[in-house]
């Protein structure tokens, strides 16, 4: 049986864990290191480096090296305009489209970069299982964690990254909730828990009630753009000033400020940029960043209907919670010492492994009931959002809305789906635009189309619609505002180097079939031309039609074979056989157009 794992795909570091004899364990390399830096570097010769290797390349080949990519997941070009300048790599993309990261000659979407990290974790786990003497060491299924405050686009981008890496993503779960699962393992907690998760790039606060093994999230809040990265950038600005530096110099300074930050978690002072740097000075600098976590904490408590003093236990997650100022501030808010028995870097991956185990084994001892962090709504008249599913609703959650038509015989309705808490469309996150098609023609206002919005246990939205008078299921075309279409994900999966070789032949075969189908369709269309009888009589040679028909039949026969060359041979034959006919039709069309008549009148 192939293996399932839990993966924490972090801004700074990523980890993979699995459940062994009922307990989750982080998978480490030979040196005992469980962390894989979420850094990807594409060398000049096309070699892809991931993790520590890639991290070292930040000092030698910064412009070909990507880090903190999680900040770009599910984002549009405009969203990241202001911070792109902090990174050594190119950040581009079409207006209104997905962000693209340029490394060397090629451009990658954030899910593709993340997929490199996931593939490295997959390989690490597979090597580990092989080393354990497992007969089937393939890792093809995973639970992947995301910040609780991630929106639909960011979750979908994470799931896409998993698919591109060749993983079946069993479930997307929230990082703070995963952490609470890991903490709840040994002791049978009952009570109210607050999970404060300050990572490399994101901040989450989740309030949970645990009872009878059910981990029920009451409220969640956060900021998907707040974390250790912001502290690093702040320190870098103070060190660098306005002096111009090479990208590699900037990276050297970045590593120095990160080291200083770490030092000051255990010591009162360190050196930075050749001078003494005291903890008090550091804390004064970063206090505004730490303070930004307080608002979300208060909002989450208010949404849960709780006072800080009612919280029984506080759990710290994420590397940035090692900072003493952060710990003090959390302690002040809740009036109690937070838990930190488990390694804050590892606890999320452990929880993900537990959830993966629950899904595969059907173990019913524990159950996670999470919530959707943001309200879901649709655009109504005047650019106002009408909410359909409220934030902090337990997922899976569903809601529906009735639509009708504005004019007689209207057969389509456009719907704009948004996520966020604000009143106006412009202030919320656009998730997708849908066009409901196939509404049966009837007088205006008669159609009753019920659109059902379903948020699944991953926190990901799907939409279905039904016209109630005729009970006709409507077709919905989804155009994600900042995401990839299924086809794009499939193509990226094929493009990914691991699959490229195995699928190269398959892809060529598919291409050959597609080409054949296109020629078949064009031929059929020509043969069905309204004036075909006249064309054949006036312009085709004797037996020309019969020839075309027999070659067409031949190509149809070989179309489903796996012999690419035969398909191509017949395709070319049909192309040749129809060349003259195609020219004749083309000429007639042009003549008709010049004389101002429609082709059908010729």
């Amino acid at each position, binding site marked *: 049986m192939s293996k399932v794992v839990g993966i924490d795909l972090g801004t700074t570091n990523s980890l993979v864990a699995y459940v062994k004899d009922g307990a989750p364990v982080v998978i480490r390399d030979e040196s005992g290191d469980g962390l894989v830096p979420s850094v990807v570097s594409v060398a000049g010769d096309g070699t892809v480096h991931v993790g520590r290797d890639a991290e070292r390349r930040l000092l030698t080949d910064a412009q070909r090296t990507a880090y903190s990519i999680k900040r770009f997941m599910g984002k549009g070009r405009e969203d990241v305009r202001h911070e792109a300048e902090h990174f050594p790599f190119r950040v581009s993309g079409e207006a209104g489209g997905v962000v693209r990261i340029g490394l060397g000659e090629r451009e990658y979407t954030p899910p593709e970069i993340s997929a490199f990290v996931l593939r490295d974790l997959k390989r690490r786990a597979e090597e580990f299982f092989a080393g354990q003497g497992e007969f089937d060491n393939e890792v093809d299924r995973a639970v992947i964690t995301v910040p609780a405050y991630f929106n639909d686009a960011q979750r979908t981008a994470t799931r896409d990254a998993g698919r591109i890496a060749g993983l079946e993503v069993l479930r997307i779960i929230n990082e703070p909730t995963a952490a609470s699962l890991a903490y709840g393992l040994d002791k049978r907690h009952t009570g109210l828990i607050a999970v404060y998760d300050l990572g490399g790039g994101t901040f989450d606060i989740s309030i949970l009630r645990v009872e009878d093994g059910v981990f029920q999230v009451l409220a969640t809040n956060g900021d998907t753009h707040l974390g250790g990265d912001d502290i690093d950038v702040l320190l870098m600005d103070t060190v660098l000033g306005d002096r111009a530096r090479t990208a590699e110099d900037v990276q050297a300074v970045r590593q120095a400020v990160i080291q200083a930050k770490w030092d000051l978690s255990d010591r009162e002072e360190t050196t930075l940029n050749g001078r003494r740097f005291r903890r008090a000075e550091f804390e004064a600098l970063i206090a505004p960043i730490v303070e930004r976590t307080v608002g979300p904490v208060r909002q989450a408590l208010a949404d849960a209907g709780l006072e800080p003093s009612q919280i029984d236990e506080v759990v710290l997650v994420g590397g940035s919670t090692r900072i003493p100022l952060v710990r003090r501030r959390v302690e002040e808010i809740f009036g109690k010492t937070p838990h930190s028995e488990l390694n804050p870097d590892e606890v999320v991956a452990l929880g993900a492994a537990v959830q993966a185990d629950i899904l*595969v084994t*059907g173990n019913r001892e524990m159950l996670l009931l999470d919530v959707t962090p943001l309200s879901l709504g649709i655009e109504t008249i005047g650019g106002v959002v009408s909410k359909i599913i409220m934030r902090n609703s337990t997922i899976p*959650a569903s809601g529906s809305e009735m639509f009708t038509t504005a004019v007689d015989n209207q057969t389509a309705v456009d719907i704009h789906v948004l996520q966020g808490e604000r009143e106006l469309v412009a202030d919320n996150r656009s998730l997708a635009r849908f066009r409901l098609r196939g509404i049966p023609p009837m007088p205006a206002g008669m159609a009753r189309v019920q659109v059902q919005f379903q948020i699944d246990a991953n926190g990901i939205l799907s939409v279905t619609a039904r016209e109630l008078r005729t009970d006709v299921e409507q077709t919905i075309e989804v155009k994600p505002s900042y995401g990839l279409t299924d086809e794009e994900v499939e193509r990226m999966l094929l493009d990914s180097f691991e699959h490229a070789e195995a699928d190269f032949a398959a892809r060529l075969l598919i291409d050959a079939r597609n080409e054949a189908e296109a020629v078949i369709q064009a031929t059929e269309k020509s043969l069905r031309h309204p004036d075909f009888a006249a064309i054949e009589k006036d312009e085709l040679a004797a037996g020309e039609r019969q020839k075309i028909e027999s070659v067409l039949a031949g190509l149809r026969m070989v179309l489903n074979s796996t012999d690419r060359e035969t398909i191509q041979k017949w395709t070319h034959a049909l192309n040749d056989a129809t060349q003259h006919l195609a020219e004749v039709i083309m000429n007639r069309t042009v003549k008709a157009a010049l004389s101002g008549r429609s082709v059908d009148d010729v």
Partner: protein
Amino acid sequence: MSSSTTATLQVCRECGAGAPLDAHFCPQCTKILPLGRPGDYFGFLGLPRKLNIDGADLERRFRELSRQFHPDYFYNASPAERRASLERSSYLNDAYRTLKNPAARVEYLLALEGFGAKGPQEASKAVPPALLEEVFALNEELDEIREARSGGAPADAWKPRLERARTPIEARRAAHEADLRNLSARWDALVDRGDAASERRTVLESLRNRILERNYINNLLATIARELGSHE
């Protein structure tokens, strides 16, 4: 209008057996049933259609049913069962959220019994007749305060006035809450007794008026809070 149920059985698509409308699993083949035509939130949670709900009991029922339906436990099941699990879990979460909140519970009952608000506007637009006097007085007061403020009056001159204006409205809210509790108890007693259609009607109508007024009062209090908060 009483709650007459027309159908009493649902059919298991897996084995074709009949199951009670409120059943979650087929009594014959034990498979999870699709959520074809749910009864209502009360029946779904195994509760009578009463307004006094014990919070701890509701939580317990919610957790128990979550453990039966959650998609986590149907990962390896057939697509039909997975879909049924998703539908039942979503419906359960809706039911729990609605019945947990006393005001939402009353509004839901009113809708079930055919006494729901006609549209979202009804609750907010028209001033309920019973509140006309207070609303008129408050608006006048607010206008004067705004005028004083734009004339440069310091906060400690108008803030106490605003606080004073709030007191009678808060008293109104307290009275309404008591009213709602009494009416709820009356409704529950009627449910226990059964029948008494005309009396039910009277109670439901009163409940509806109280709820509309309550929503209006809450909006008024929110307006005052905004006035107080926006000029700190």
